[in-house]
């Protein structure tokens, strides 16, 4: 008996050793997981290359001083892969207002959006007319865009003495975008997303929202005094919301936490943002007219992943600038910042 048992052990040992050696040998195989070299370029629709005109660094070595024509843009990407026509368009609505960091915010937002195929950027300025800064930026961005403007009426405009957190609401601007969408867009499969210019968006977010049928929702990071706010999902349906700031709201979401199908907006022409809504109720003022809680579509792995962050940019300190301006020596206003 003892002899047999030992043979069993020996057999087991040899089998497991053999199997493990095989596995180790597999590990040793170089898996060509290098994503870096010779990768296909990102896709994207026919982009409108702006007035600046893409330059092309010459091949054939040696350093070359920059030409007199100014900076060279990177070489244009290879032609984008064919996208099926049924890929829904994403309309990104960004209200913006003039302040020091406006150009920087729009530049880095455009750099993110440039990676997303079939995207149409609708920028609405809080201004009586379109500004040259935004117009030039959009033209150069390489994105498909629409440039609108809608001034906030005086009572709601923030005044110089207001605290920093009391920022413009953007309701009138977003409503202007809704009006443009309703006036000009046919009922096609498309999604509308309200993206503020200071948030941070991961690329996957846009793919999550593309399949929206009515209203899709997902978590938002760094908002409402929390690491993230999110809808609570059970069996694929939204049953509640995990939020700490004013959780009694009908839709305790941030503007960045939902997207609406274009068809739904066109079907409900009365749905819009209420500029007189209390702080935090702006999102609810739109969503109440569109959908009920049960109809919300949870995305981002049943709302367990954070794909967008409600970052805010500090107001840059201008103490020395103000000092200089008092002396009449302020920086050249022709240099755009």
């Amino acid at each position, binding site marked *: 008996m003892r002899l047999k048992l030992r043979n069993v052990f020996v057999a087991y040992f040899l089998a497991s050793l053999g199997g493990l050696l095989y596995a180790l040998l597999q590990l040793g195989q170089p898996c060509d997981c290098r994503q870096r*070299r010779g990768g296909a370029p990102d896709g994207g629709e026919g982009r409108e290359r702006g007035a600046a005109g893409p330059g092309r660094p010459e091949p054939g070595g040696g350093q070359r001083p920059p030409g007199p024509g100014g900076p060279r843009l990177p070489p244009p990407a290879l032609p984008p892969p064919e996208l099926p026509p049924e890929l829904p368009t994403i309309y990104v609505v960004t209200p913006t207002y003039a302040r020091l960091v406006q150009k920087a915010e729009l530049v880095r937002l455009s750099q993110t959006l440039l990676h997303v195929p079939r995207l149409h950027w609708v920028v609405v300025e809080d201004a009586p007319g379109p500004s040259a800064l935004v117009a030039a930026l959009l033209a150069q961005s390489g994105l498909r865009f629409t440039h609108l403007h809608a001034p906030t009426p005086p009572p709601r405009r923030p005044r110089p003495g207001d605290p920093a957190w009391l920022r413009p609401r953007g309701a009138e601007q977003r409503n202007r975008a809704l009006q443009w969408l309703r006036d000009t867009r046919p009922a096609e499969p498309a999604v509308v997303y309200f993206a503020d210019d200071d948030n941070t968006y991961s690329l996957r977010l846009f793919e999550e929202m593309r399949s929206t049928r009515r209203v899709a929702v997902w978590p938002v990071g760094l908002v409402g005094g929390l690491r993230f706010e999110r809808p609570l999902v059970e069996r694929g349906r939204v049953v509640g919301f995990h939020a700490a700031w004013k959780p009694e709201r009908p839709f305790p979401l941030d503007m960045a936490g939902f997207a609406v199908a274009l068809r739904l907006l066109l079907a409900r022409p009365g749905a819009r943002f209420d500029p007189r809504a209390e702080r935090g109720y702006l999102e609810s003022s739109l969503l109440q007219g569109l959908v009920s809680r049960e109809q919300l579509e949870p995305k981002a792995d049943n709302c367990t992943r954070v794909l967008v962050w409600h970052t805010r940019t500090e107001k840059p300190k201008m103490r020395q*600038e103000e000092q200089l301006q008092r002396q009449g020596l302020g920086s050249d206003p022709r*240099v755009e910042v």
Partner: protein
Amino acid sequence: MLRRRNLLTTLLIALPWALLLTLWHQYPTTRYLSLLKKETDENVTSKALVNGTSALREEGLPSCMRQQQSMVATRKVIQNYVYSRPPPWSDNLPTIFVITPTYTRPVQKAELTRLANTFLHVQNLHWVVVEDSPRRTNLVSNLLEKAGLNFTHLNVETPKSLKLGLSWIPSHTPRGTLQRNLGLHWLRNSFSNAAPPEGVVYFADDDNTYSLELFEEMRYTRRVSVWPVAFVGGLRYESPKVSPAGKVVGWKTVFDPNRPFAIDMAGFAISIKLILEKPQASFKLEGVKGGYQETSLLKDLVTMDGLEPKAANCTKVLVWHTRTERPTLVNEGKRGFTDPRVEV
């Protein structure tokens, strides 16, 4: 009653498993295998597949991922998620090595995400991310691996004494110095002075904003190039003063314009050749006054008349020193309101 024979048998059974477990952790390829199991992650963009034919997306996808994807693809008409790719590497363009020190805080992932989105547009860019931490964190490792960029991931922890002790003015704490020096050290180890690669080094903080033009401006730097930076020194922008002949003759700043190099970290780039030629040049930690950190490096590399002004003779602003507000996580409370397992 343990007999020697039984002991030996037990040992022989346990040994191969112990071997496997130790070697598993060493091999980097296994990390890719584990990544396969996780769903493809946040910073990816989608291409649609029609009826599972995925010919277009094959290039650039690592071969191990390809099999996984094609198996799942056949079912849905619109499939998604491939990594966004930078433009193809060119052998004729100088490389831009971007050194970014970073540290763990709530906005870190957001900052690195949007920075990656920017860098994905730049050709021949190699991102050197240096964490201020005792170990490389999973958050940064995963982000870098999924971004699709050429990268190097380093870490070095700033000792607490250095963080607090050097200056009583918090704004002058030399944050990121050790990390940037480690980046320079890595460059010097990776390339030899005998055959220096064509390229530049740029120190890019993770909260600034960079235009794509900036990278093309700096690419052909011969020694050290400089340009204006917005929102520093309490001004709309600080810039070098450039003579009509195209030479840097001073600094347009209010804060101590008599510094040898009155320029922000984001306002200059150094050619690799110069870094390799002068191996002792690095940022100083001791005895560096506020605003002199850049000088502590540049003085060993170049003099003012050797600087190359870019951005149309320093009249255009191509980089903004933006700073992100610290989010007030007041509602988290003592025990944390939100699930700590969800990465933010």
